[in-house]
């Protein structure tokens, strides 16, 4: 942390965090550019860049700008959203396992969205609204059920596992009711997929980030205070419950709307803040660094998902689970060994 003073204004700048963020975004853009060249047929990078600059032929513009670009943008956006949401939850609970994907918030959003898909079809704009309401309802349920003279991290996670089981079985039931093609598209979506994402999805996640990230960053001072413990935070800042509530709402909104745009891509919210924390070598992850790492993770995983079994593309969520779940097991084993687990 370096203090910076310009006239009457002063702020502290975390140099390591900025360096990590910038590097992560540069790598993300490189991978994104590679992604744009690959697809049903390859387009040389120069042509892609030319098209993006507005000088491409009609077909090129259609393929690159209308087809491939939104997919990459949605990938970056939801990666950042999931990761920032994860960082908020992990820091609020002071527990690396409390992330929206493990405590069932993504599952709640997914149930609501599958309901919308089976009732209204994939094209409808109902999915985001449903996912947002679903995630908020689920989060409220989990919070109330886990509340018992305060919130303990592990109780939150275990209650989340229980809620995930209920919500997941209802989702599975909805899938048995639908016809097989609806079930297929809902299953693709449930695995967490960027396939067929178009501009409306990109705009949705873009607006989400524009509104909620500044709110999250504004709340990060409060976050730092809350990490000191409720008593100390109350002495220093006053209204602890209010700022915690607002931060939770921001975190739930990010996870819910990212789920609406790309399905419940697992483990990004869990892993990205932890990676960011280790890269920055801080005790906690900065929100923006976590977001940058999250974008990188999703865009890179999507490239892998498309290329491993090409021409058959896997949903990106399968790859993130493959990378993330072993990391979670290692994280737990390590936490257990030093005696912090359970």
């Amino acid at each position, binding site marked *: 942390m370096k203090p910076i003073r310009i006239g009457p204004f002063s702020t502290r700048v975390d140099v390591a965090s900025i360096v990590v963020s910038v590097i992560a975004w540069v790598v993300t853009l490189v991978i994104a550019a590679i992604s744009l060249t690959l697809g049903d047929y390859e387009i040389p990078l120069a042509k892609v860049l030319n098209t993006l600059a507005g000088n491409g032929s009609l077909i090129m513009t259609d393929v690159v700008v209308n087809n491939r670009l939104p997919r990459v943008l949605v990938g970056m956006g939801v990666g950042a959203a999931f990761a920032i949401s994860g960082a908020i939850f992990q820091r609020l609970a002071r527990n690396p396992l409390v992330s929206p994907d493990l405590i069932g918030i993504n599952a709640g959003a997914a149930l609501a969205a599958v309901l919308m898909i089976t009732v209204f079809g994939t094209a409808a704009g109902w999915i985001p609204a449903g996912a947002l309401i679903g995630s908020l309802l689920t989060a409220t349920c989990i919070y109330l059920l886990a509340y018992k003279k305060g919130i303990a991290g592990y109780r939150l996670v275990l209650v989340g596992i229980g809620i995930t089981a209920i919500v997941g079985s209802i989702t599975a039931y909805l899938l048995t009711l639908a016809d097989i093609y609806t079930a297929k598209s809902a299953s693709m979506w449930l695995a967490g997929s960027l396939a067929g994402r178009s501009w409306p999805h990109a705009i949705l996640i873009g607006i989400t980030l524009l509104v909620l990230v500044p709110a999250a960053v504004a709340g990060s001072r409060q976050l730092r205070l809350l990490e000191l413990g409720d008593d100390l935070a109350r002495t220093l800042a006053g209204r602890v419950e209010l700022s915690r509530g607002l931060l939770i709402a921001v975190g739930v909104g990010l996870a819910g709307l990212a789920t609406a745009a790309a399905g419940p891509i697992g*483990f990004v919210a869990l892993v990205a803040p932890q990676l960011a924390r280790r890269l920055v070598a801080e005790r906690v992850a900065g929100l923006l660094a976590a977001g940058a790492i999250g974008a990188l993770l999703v865009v890179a995983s999507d490239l892998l998902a498309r290329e491993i079994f090409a021409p058959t593309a896997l949903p990106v969520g399968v790859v993130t689970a493959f990378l993330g779940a072993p990391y979670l097991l290692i994280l737990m084993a390590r936490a257990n060994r030093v005696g912090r687990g359970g």
Partner: protein
Amino acid sequence: MTRSWGGRAAGLLVAGGVLLAVVLLSLVAGNQWFGPHDVYVAAADFTGSDTDRVIRYLRFPRTAVGLLAGAALGLAGAVMQGITRNPLADPGILGVNAGAALAVVVAIGLLGVQSLTGYVWFAMGGALIATVVVYLVGSVGRGGATPVKLALAGAALSALLGSVTSAITLLDLSTLNEFRFWVVGSLTLATGSIVTQALPFIAVGIILALTLGRSLNQLALGEDLAATLGTRIGLVRVLAALSVMLLAGTATAMAGPIAFVGLAVPHVARALVGADYRWILPWSLVLAPIVLLLADVVGRLVARPDELQVGIITALIGAPLFIALVRRRKLAEL
């Protein structure tokens, strides 16, 4: 409830009577109701009428699979709770069913295995591997395998296995079509041949599990004391893992991954007969099929003419119990 030997045995007989009644209910209840006489005719005096055929080829196998899968899951849950001294242990929560499910999907979807005797081996292999991984990850470090660590390891492993499973099913539309009805946990896919093929595996698993009562009682005192009392802890663990593999693996192969039966039933048994595993095990064996068959009957009746699959009913009943257990203050207490 009396905790004397006679009281527990008499109670077990009563529970057995209830089980018989539930079996009969499962045979007669459904979209079409039949009388007990119809069941007798279909069994002893088969005429080939529609009623006879529905009872003989749909209700009989369905009830038999419910009976076997219920007994297997309840007993597997009781053994897991005993061996890990963990009130949250359940083949569904600890990822054992997810391991079996993935192996079955690999066998059916990728290797083209058709019969239950073919893929039940995969299911048991998957169940065993998942059991070992969850136990190893959950028991690293101070305090050994605490309830929280095991439940988390199970959730993480389930997420991983589930996403691999979905990747395989998404590659092929017809696999997905079968899978989506199986993965909710359902007795509707039962046939007579599934029952006869699964029976030997379940029977061996049940016998193995029932021999563990005394050892589990001693383990409940703590490993050190159990070793002093002459329990061969390593052997007991291996036998327990084998029985869980046989029971949970076969049950999943038959009826899909059904969660929470193995969690809830041993707790009910414990509340009725106390902490003695020599009684908890047989009681779980009798109570679990009652629960599963009742859940199935409820699922048949609430959404007529459609059905709610039994796995959904057990999750709706079992998950709140799980949350209630989590909210209890002393989680480690068992």
